């Protein structure tokens, strides 16, 4: 985006015109000014402003003037407050005065939704070098910018409300963290009011709505959150399925894991896959078919699917197993299925899996391990327990896919901030999908995650996402070593992405692991592991 103001004429190069002499600072300072892009002319007047920030500072000055005009009674207070701020640092001076004048309290830190979209509203009335070329633009209300990237043009009013909404969300979360529920409640009311003036069909309005709901739930219903993940297994599976269809995250998880499992099973005739969350078994048809086409013929494939028990007497696990068996038979793959019903992963005992020592085992965890991270002082850490018995199975490979986010921090505000950023990005990526009802139900799926992260605590909070770096540490510490996913997996993933998905998704390789994200923000990470052998293979009691 080109800024056509004549600060570029000479201002940012420290008064370089040879005929004019300025009180130029010594050469070292000049170089520093240049490096930091400080406007040289303003520096000569005693103000440090980056040339790149001039426009923003100008806009803020305008707003400050408006604010001062609108609250003349506050000026004397403002005057005595200005001594706290450094007048030379004009950008922050103006911001500080603005925040003094525009109560309610602003958020603790600048929240950048999307570094690019912050620039959508720019007033065009700055002069060019030739002042006799006036350009008439409306300063306020709707601006059209011709941009050469895929920004959406947001009306000025809306963007302001959107940013205000984010600030208010942060303020509310901060109140919640401090335990100031009465202030949090009034924040909620303000936000709900603001929501009515914001487009809630897409963008910030939509995701903000979900966060407002989650905060509301937390404040009024407490953190037990029983009803958050309520919804029968059937509902969950349905939402999961639509999430699978609407965006590529689960597809990516499945084919990346399958590729790794396929390679790990190379040369083995008896293979056993343990799936920590069977759902509709969407991952397995592709693996079954790939094994069928294996040079040398398919192995004997056993699949153990873990899932929650069905309340209505149906054995849904078995039903999925039967369907998969049908498929396997049709492609001549010897196949056996076993279902293990357990409401929590930590309730599964390794003997339930009936692993045969002669088998090659693959353990497949798609977004399950993080559920084990809640710590209950009355029990041993479930994650350690589970990782330990996985290790004791001596699997050929363990495929792990997790949300690439830090939603398990102890501080509520930190978690909230992370989640706001993460799910905003995810919602943005969902905009690329237009197919209904996939999209709407996928959103509900995501909304449930948000509600769990924000409004639950203790054992009720199961969405304890941690980033890849933490999983690396944790898994290495539990006796696993990483398996490189390999360039094949990367190429496959990239190719499949172009087939299935819209522009904007990106696959990245991260030290042997693969991540899928929206633009440059990874949202899901896939990795593969193997137990470090210590000579013994032992089933824990």
């Amino acid at each position, binding site marked *: 985006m080109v800024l056509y103001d004549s600060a570029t004429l000479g201002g940012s190069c420290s008064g370089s015109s040879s005929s004019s002499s*300025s009180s130029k600072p010594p050469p070292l300072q000049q170089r520093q000014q240049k490096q930091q892009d400080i406007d040289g002319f*303003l520096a000569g007047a*005693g103000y440090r402003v980056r040339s790149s920030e*001039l426009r923003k500072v100008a806009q803020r000055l305008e707003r400050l003037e408006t604010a001062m005009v609108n609250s003349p009674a506050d000026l004397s207070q403002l005057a005595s407050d200005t001594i706290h701020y450094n007048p030379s640092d004009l950008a922050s001076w103006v911001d500080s005065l603005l925040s003094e004048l525009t109560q309610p309290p602003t958020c603790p830190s600048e929240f950048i939704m999307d570094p690019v979209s912050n620039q959508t509203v720019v007033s065009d009335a700055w002069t060019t070098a030739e002042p006799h070329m006036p350009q008439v633009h409306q300063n306020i209300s709707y601006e059209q910018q011709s941009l050469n990237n895929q920004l959406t043009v947001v009306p000025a009013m809306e963007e302001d409300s959107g940013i205000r909404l984010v600030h208010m969300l942060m303020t509310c979360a901060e109140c919640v963290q401090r335990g100031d529920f009465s202030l949090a409640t009034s924040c909620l009311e303000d936000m709900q009011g603001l929501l009515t003036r914001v487009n809630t069909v897409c963008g910030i309005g939509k995701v903000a709505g979900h966060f407002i709901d989650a905060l509301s739930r937390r404040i009024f219903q407490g953190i037990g959150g029983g009803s958050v993940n309520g919804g029968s297994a059937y509902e969950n599976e349905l939402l999961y399925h639509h999430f699978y269809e609407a965006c590529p995250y689960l597809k990516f998880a499945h084919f990346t894991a399958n590729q790794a499992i396929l390679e790990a099973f190379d040369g083995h005739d008896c293979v056993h896959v343990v799936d920590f969350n069977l759902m509709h078994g969407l991952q397995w048809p592709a693996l079954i078919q790939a094994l069928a086409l294996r040079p040398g013929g398919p192995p004997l494939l056993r699949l153990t699917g873990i899932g929650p028990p069905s309340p209505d007497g149906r054995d849904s696990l078995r039903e999925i197993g039967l369907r998969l068996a049908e498929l396997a038979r049709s492609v001549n793959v010897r196949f056996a299925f076993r279902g293990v019903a357990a409401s929590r992963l930590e309730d599964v005992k390794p003997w339930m899996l009936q692993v045969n020592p002669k088998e090659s085992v693959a353990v497949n965890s798609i977004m399950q391990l993080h559920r084990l991270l809640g710590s209950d002082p009355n029990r041993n850490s479930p994650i350690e327990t589970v990782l330990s018995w996985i290790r004791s199975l001596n699997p050929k490979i363990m495929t792990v896919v997790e949300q690439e986010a830090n939603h398990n921090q102890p501080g509520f505000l930190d978690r909230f901030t992370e989640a706001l950023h993460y799910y905003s990005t995810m919602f943005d990526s969902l905009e690329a999908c237009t197919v209904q009802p996939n999209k709407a139900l996928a959103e509900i799926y995501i909304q449930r995650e948000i509600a769990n992260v924000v409004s639950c605590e203790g054992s009720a909070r199961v969405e304890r996402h941690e980033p890849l770096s933490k999983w690396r540490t944790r898994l290495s510490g539990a006796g696993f070593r990483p398996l490189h996913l390999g360039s094949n997996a990367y190429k496959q993933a990239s190719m499949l992405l172009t087939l299935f998905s819209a522009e904007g998704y990106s696959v990245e390789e991260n030290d042997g692991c693969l991540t899928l994200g929206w633009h440059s923000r990874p949202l899901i990470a896939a990795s593969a592991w193997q137990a470090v052998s210590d000579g013994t293979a032992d089933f824990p009691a």
Partner: protein
Amino acid sequence: MARSNEVNLNECKMVVPLNTWVLISNFKLAYNLLRRPDGTFNRHLAEFLDRKVPANANPVDGVFSFDVLIDRGTSLLSRIYRPTTAEEPQLNIAELEKPVMAAVVPVIIFFHGGSFAHSSANSAIYDTLCRRLVSLCKAVVVSVNYRRAPENRYPCAYDDGWTALKWVNSRPWLQSQKDSKVHIYLAGDSSGGNIAHHVALRAIESGIDVLGNILLNPMFGGQERTESEKRLDGKYFVTLRDRDWYWRAYLPEGEDRDHLACNPFGPNGRSLEGIKFPKSLVVVAGLDLIQDWQLAYVEGLKKAGQEVKLLYMEQATIGFYLLPNNNHFHTVMDEISKFVHSFNS
């Protein structure tokens, strides 16, 4: 905010470079905090906010400066700016008052602006401006730190200017070699321009020769509301309200804007006919709301048979000369240079 304010901002932004706009807007807002409705002035905050720079006896880009105490009684300081010469690129501290070596060296006594209330000789913007004047005009500049309103009303600023003039005139080291006289010019912007005029007036019967007056956007006014004041009120950083405030702060209490300090060619003014008044260079910014008063001043000089050159900069706003990022700046600097080196002096 009314729609008209949108238009104001737009017009203003169209003619001013971005960094100038930021600078002057910042002043405008800061000054709003300093002027109290009851006519008092938040001097402590003003001094805190004002960006100041020290004198520097080490030449920077061929100019060095040092401060002198001209009058102990009124604590009148001035900052002297001198050019280094090719022969002696660096003077040491004992040589600050070394005599000027050239045949003719213009000495410009400069009165900074600030509507009689703001700024100082050591304000960064004025230190920078004076240094530019030295380089471009090959002159010595004496920037006078005159007493300001509302603590010090008329005629304090003029008294200080007069004291400085006498002091400059009596410095042997400022005398041009050609005639052993100090070649003095009076200059100033905004209130400084007003001061230059009145100091020149006072010099008339004294025998001190002032070779020329340079008035940059000089601050004049009157009771009447002129067309330019009505048309440009609030449009280019300046409002009539703040102009009125500053006059009320400077003029003696109870006086109105037709006082001769404010309106030298008004009902209370003094006729300059037949008086040996210095030639004047008057710069008027076409977007300055008080331009009608400035143009009336020029007319007044002309009618009195005085030599005056008007530079009317159509698209210029107040403060255009503070940053050298526009054509007006360079035009005006050239004219000033010619003015102080013209062969008639």
